[in-house]
């Protein structure tokens, strides 16, 4: 579903945000992306959604090479990807309802059917009674949940979440994670960047750990690095001998 092959990302100005990353994410898999601030988590997610392009190496998403994808093919790709942004990217000139409506408008949905879907998505994140509110009147956590509602309303096959529980207390974090889990159960591929040790423990899954743009160890479930050798054995290393966080699926995956 998502394949990185020796990917480097150098931003204009020379900063190398990602260095020689290689990994695979299978269809329907749920994977965490962890790492310190500035490690390159957001950059990696942006590559998957074709918001940035790799400087070298191949990024394959649903069989399409992001490095050479034509601009005209990007909208179709993004409609299949639910994006949850670190900074929400909500529109403050319209209601919460209309924010969630936007992806459906873009796809040309029938208005009544769309309305039902929007309410279902708002209900899922516990914002149904705030549908008329302007996002600016929502708390940080509520905004985050609104962003999630917008990402899932279109029922994407891939969900990319950049610190989706960053502003949420444990209770809501768990609720959000349960929503993700339910998506995982119906076959959606999930890539979730997070700092939150709590959810890593509570909802164990494979984790890709980034450090200064390099893929470190990989882990199953608990969020702690496992022994390198075991992981080597699960995946043939590539030509350069660079291995990259790949491991057997955890019980959750």
């Amino acid at each position, binding site marked *: 579903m998502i394949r990185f092959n020796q990917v480097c990302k150098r931003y204009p100005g020379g900063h190398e945000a990602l260095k020689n990353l290689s990994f695979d994410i299978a269809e329907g898999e749920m994977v965490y992306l962890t790492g310190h601030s500035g490690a390159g988590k957001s950059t990696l997610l942006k590559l998957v*959604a074709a*918001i*940035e392009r790799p400087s070298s190496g191949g990024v394959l998403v649903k069989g399409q090479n992001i490095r050479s994808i034509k601009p*005209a093919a*990007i*909208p*179709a*790709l*993004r*409609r*299949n*990807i639910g*994006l949850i*942004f670190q900074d929400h*990217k*909500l*529109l403050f*000139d319209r209601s919460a309802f209309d924010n969630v409506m*936007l*992806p459906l*408008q*873009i*796809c*040309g949905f*029938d*208005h009544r059917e769309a309305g039902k879907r929007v309410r279902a998505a708002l209900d899922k994140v516990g914002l149904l009674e705030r549908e008329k509110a302007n996002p600016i009147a929502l708390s940080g956590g509520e905004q985050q949940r609104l962003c999630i509602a*917008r990402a899932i309303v*279109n029922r994407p096959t891939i969900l990319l979440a950049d610190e989706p529980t960053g502003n949420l207390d444990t209770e809501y974090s768990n609720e959000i994670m349960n929503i993700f889990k339910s998506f995982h159960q119906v076959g959606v591929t999930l890539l979730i960047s997070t700092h939150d040790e709590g959810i890593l423990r509570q909802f164990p899954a494979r984790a890709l750990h980034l450090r200064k743009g390099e893929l470190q160890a990989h882990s199953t479930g608990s969020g702690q690095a496992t022994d390198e050798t075991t992981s080597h054995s699960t995946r043939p290393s590539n030509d350069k001998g660079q291995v990259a966080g790949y491991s057997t699926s955890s019980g959750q995956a």
Partner: protein
Amino acid sequence: MKTLIEHLRVLRFTLQRLLLAPNATLLNILIIGIALSLPVGGYVLLKSVQALGAQIAGTPQISVFLASGTGVGDIERIGDRLKQHAAIKRIEFVPRETALKKMQQSTGLSDIIGGLSQNPLPDAFVIHPKDSSVASLEALRDELKTWQRFEHVQLDSAWVHKLEALLDFGRMAVIILAVLLSFALVAITFNTIRLQILTRREEIEVAKLIGATDAFIRRPFLYFGLTQGLLGGVAAWLLISASLLLLNHTLSALAQLYASDFSLQGLTTGDSLTLLGFSAYLGWLGAWFSVSQHLWQIEPR
């Protein structure tokens, strides 16, 4: 069906946006309306003057004056020959006596004419040609000049020429005005849309991030340009119509003094539809230029 609903949605959204800033919208529409009404007003004037010219000129005629002493038999033969000419519709024979009487009646020179000892006027034919274009009239005149016993062939076309030349000048002026002001209209729309794109930058970014096609993003701006242009056209139409009403009111008093029923002609349905279509098209064009110029610069990061 789905696309129709989508287009209607965008249209409703566009109208909402026009109403959102009524002052700016009204000002823009007024500017476009005035800009358009100048060439359209010129066109209306030209059309009326042209009609007036045709009315005064009537159907053009050629007068042929016969040499003195042409006999009755000759006159008949010439008359028959003229009647059979392919370029001539109708002829009238004006005997010299009739011409003198007419002159006495119409010019008020009866005293002087009455004092003449003999009739100085020749016999004449008035020829009504089939084709009234200047070129064919002149050709006919030149041909008739070669005929025997024709002393003088006169085509009163000099002032038709002058009017035509004047109208040509006027037409050119209107065209230049129309082209310049069309550019102005496109520029106005270009700038309006540019500002809109800048203020809605965030929305465009988010729309791109969640998979909006360029067409989807472009559509509301194009609709906006189209609608604004169309409303500008409507404003121009109203301005012209109101001005004509006022002008004709004063003109009718003036025309009465000259015993004429001259009045400025209004815009026909065809003219009106052309005006509206053209203004809408120019608005759309300005929006299109603006969108293609500015939209690609907005890429989400």
